[in-house]
């Protein structure tokens, strides 16, 4: 056979291999087929369907201890004291600095690390720059969002040139009287959720978006912008305050602008843990939705263990399950915990089923409502359309609305 015909055949077959790979890539990346692949993978049943040993040994009597409103109030005061060093929620705590309309006038920013815009950033940028995306650099990409009046940056810092926070406050032109606090988790920033926030703003929600400490603007990387004011210091000069003060500050700021009919907080991954605690601390949050996170500490495994650090010192006062009950402790308050059953990262499987009914009963006994939902529509670590539809139904209908 001539060499050219060998080459022709070789490239033909190589082309066929690429064609097959393209088809397989669609199946691998599309959520419904990805779920099927996950379910058929070796060890899938043990991982996603079977209850692990520790889950059946939970002593719920030790983890669910709140059965009357007075006990909840007392526990809340102790928690607030632990986080803020005062006996009541600091309702007068406001941002140290507000930069209005950052989408139009971002002000001076240090070098933008991922100047590619939200659509391309995950393809063209390195991870260490993706997690440092700041609103001063990104806001211009949001300028043309439908119904966006402006984005305000609420900032402050707690320790001298250390521990700052930055909240992006999205104001709609036509507001619907509802506020959504969005808390991003680790290894990402809320900029990754730009479509989610864009959709909320278009529908008239006011949105306050927050990152975890150390991510996005929550570092003193841009020292001049974030960390030169005199620090808040004092009782806010500690890690717990850096985690849990921003939702309170965002809410205080929002309430000072206008009154809101409903206040919801949504958090994903580590942000789910912040959401859990924020709802336990602040009864103004009437709907809280921790997504893809939040399990009793003795059910954590592998990389989930990092969540212990977020609630360190708090779970001595109230267990994770008690914290959940505190977020749904009265009529009109509701918590929806959403778990991605086939999550490729963490917090997967049926573990919450081992305590779901007891947890729901505890909240119901106090007049609140607590739901645990399992999202089986995908196998990723995210808020899916399935979850979003349920979240929006709860927000639009108020905390009491049934599914």
């Amino acid at each position: 056979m001539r060499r050219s015909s060998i080459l022709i055949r070789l490239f033909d077959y190589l082309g066929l291999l690429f064609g097959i790979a393209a088809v397989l890539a669609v199946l691998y990346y599309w959520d419904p087929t990805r779920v099927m692949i996950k379910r058929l993978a070796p060890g899938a049943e043990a991982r996603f369907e079977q209850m692990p040993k520790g889950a059946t040994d939970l002593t719920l009597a030790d983890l669910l201890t709140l059965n009357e409103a007075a006990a909840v109030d007392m526990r809340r005061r102790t928690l607030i004291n632990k986080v803020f060093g005062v006996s009541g929620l600091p309702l007068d705590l406001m941002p140290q600095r507000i930069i209005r309309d950052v989408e139009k006038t971002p002000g001076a920013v240090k070098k933008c690390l991922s100047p590619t815009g939200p659509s391309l950033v995950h393809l063209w940028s390195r991870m260490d720059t993706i997690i440092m995306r700041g609103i001063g650099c990104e806001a211009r990409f949001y300028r043309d969002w439908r119904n966006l009046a402006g984005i305000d940056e609420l900032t402050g810092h707690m320790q001298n040139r250390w521990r700052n926070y930055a909240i992006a406050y999205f104001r709609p032109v036509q507001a619907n009287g509802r506020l959504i606090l969005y808390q991003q988790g680790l290894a990402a920033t809320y900029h990754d959720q730009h479509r989610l926030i864009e959709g909320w703003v278009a529908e008239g929600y006011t949105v306050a978006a927050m990152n975890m400490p150390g991510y996005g603007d929550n570092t003193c990387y841009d020292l001049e912008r974030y960390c030169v004011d005199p620090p808040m210091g004092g009782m806010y000069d500690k890690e717990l305050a850096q985690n849990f003060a921003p939702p309170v500050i965002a809410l205080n700021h929002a309430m000072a602008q206008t009154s809101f009919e409903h206040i919801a907080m949504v958090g994903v991954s580590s942000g789910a843990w912040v959401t859990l605690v924020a709802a336990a601390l602040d009864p103004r949050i009437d709907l809280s939705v921790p997504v893809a996170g939040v399990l009793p500490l003795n059910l954590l495994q592998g990389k989930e263990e990092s969540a212990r650090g977020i609630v360190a010192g708090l779970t001595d006062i109230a267990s994770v399950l008690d914290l959940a009950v505190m977020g749904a402790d009265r009529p009109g308050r509701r918590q929806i915990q959403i778990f991605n059953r086939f999550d490729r990262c963490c917090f997967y499987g049926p573990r919450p089923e081992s305590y779901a009914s007891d947890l729901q009963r505890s909240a119901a006994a106090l007049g609140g409502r607590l739901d645990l939902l399992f999202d089986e529509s995908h196998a990723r670590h995210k808020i899916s359309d399935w979850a979003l539809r349920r979240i929006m139904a709860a927000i639009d209908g108020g905390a009491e609305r049934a599914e």
Partner: protein
Amino acid sequence: MSASARIALALSLAALIVAVALWWSGGAWQYGALPTRGLVRVASFAMGAAVCIGLAAWIKRRFS
């Protein structure tokens, strides 16, 4: 064009069209039902197939 080349072209074109449709209908972003990264992967494979088939056709024209 050989049968295998025709199959390769059909597969890669179909995969690309389906991927673009799924990506677009899911909001055209990283957290959609088909993430941007997945679309790029599919497009790369489809392009790889097209390049190989194109090379085969060129060799055929050039040397036969």
